[in-house]
């Protein structure tokens, strides 16, 4: 059993899985969060100034 498991892990290392990074998603959701916060604080500023 042991050598077979080694084979699998070596194969996985040699042929890494397809590109599944989600960096674009991370930046997109950060931008989304920034948009929400900026908009909220603009209206908050109006609220405070009135």
């Amino acid at each position: 059993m042991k050598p077979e498991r080694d084979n699998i892990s070596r194969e996985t290392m040699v042929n890494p899985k397809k590109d599944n990074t989600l960096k674009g998603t991370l930046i997109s959701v950060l931008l989304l969060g920034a948009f929400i916060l900026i908009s909220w604080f603009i209206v908050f500023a109006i609220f405070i100034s009135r």
Partner: protein
Amino acid sequence: MMEKHLSISPKEARLVMAHMYVAFISLLVGGLMGLLQTFVRSGSFDLPFGIGYYQILTAHGVILALVLTTFFIIGFQFALMSKTVGISDKQRLSAWIGFWTMLIGTLLTAGTILTGKANVLYTFYAPLKAFPTFYIGLALVVVGSWIACFTNFRQLAVWKKTHKGEKSPLLAFMVVINMLLWYIATLGVAATVLIQFIPWSLGMVDTINVLVSRTLFWYFGHPLVYFWLLPAYMAWYAIIPKIIGGKIFSDALARLSFVLFLMFSIPVGFHHQLTEPGIDPLWKFIQVVLTFMVIIPSLLTAFSMFATFEMAGRSKGYTSLFGWIKALPWKDVRFFAPVVGMLAFIPAGTGGIINASHQMNQVIHNTIWVTGHFHLTVGTTVILTFFGISYWLIPSLTGRKLTKKINTLGIIQTIVWSVGMFIMSGSMHIAGLLGAPRRSAYSTYTGAEQVDTWIGYQLAQAIGGTILFIGIVLMVYIFFYMVLGAPKGKASFPIAEVSEEAEPTPQYLENWKLWIGITIALILFAYTIPFIDIIQHSPPGSEGFENLIR
């Protein structure tokens, strides 16, 4: 494991299409009313033939926000259930009974509005009083929708019996969550209509408890928004991935977000009543906190959509940071219309957070900002997704093809809609911040200086509204072309598979008793004490005012 999908029989297709006819005719009629309103508010148009502004405002709200949405959603959901868990002859019969009950109710209510006997707007706030058939019609619409609810529940229950131990199909799970949400929420509006409004409008009682009626309305009114939104989310989670050649990012995440919507979208109605006297501020605050909980599943959805798009793009070889955006099928209207809807949800959701922010609500309360807000949510995000659904649903039901010409026209329609809404909703948001009121007809307010700052934006609303009406005419043409004119053929009913890399869905996500139990507990927690307080400390009830506004 891959889900098996059933084919939709001609009898099932007829059922779904009956709902779609009502929805698209409503779009045309309700849209025309909206166009007329923007003209009146621009200050340069008077309604002919003695038609009243508040009459068309009521018609616009009821026909679009209640009739169009409910019929489209229930029809779409029957299609999803037929495709995933099937429908028996008995279930189809009960679905038809539900449809006819809703249609009779709709005609009764719409007829009352059009004869000028129900100028009470779609929120029908007491003490404005309509002719009894307005409320009886609404009650029938709700009862008809309950028949649809229980038909859907039965459909899944029967499937579960024959598929012991299997998790329910994702779309069927979502439909049942949405119908549970609808059923629990409509209990509030049914209570106020049956116990308060109908006896009052029939003259059986003289007065009405205004705050109780408004509280029961908003107990229903906020989850109503999610009843509109969740079918759009169904398409985003489970259908769009197939259209873009990708997979569902995570079945478990999709189910979790729907469960969270069920739990947190109902005990939040007080955020519509933040400036209302007679409700303990502590309970308003508690419901504001619960409202903010409902942001979580929307943010989960936003993350999930970006991840689905990025994974699909990268699997096609687009490996740069934002290269995956290029891989998306921008020229396919089945993707383009809903994705524009998704983008609109960014400012729409942000506006919603601002509206619900307790004291900050005073900045925008009862201003036309709020109208701008829900024209972005339901009037753009939801409706563009529904249009996106129609481009594959209608041809697949009518045995026709989505032609290149209609695809292009659909893309033009989406652009027209976006431009019109950007102008109309954008100017509503700005005018609202400047204090322009919502609901009211054109007025110079005896020449108040502040009014001058609004008028330019009110003209812009008329321009945006006109562009939107062109969009409506285009969409109604596209609908009837897909029903009657498109070449015969086979259109696909796209349902996506879950990504192989997604974690397996935990069993507990389908623990209905647990989720319904938590939902009821949260509702009881958020409403029991303040509601008893409202009843115990009520001022005297109000008499009704008929035709106070017209």
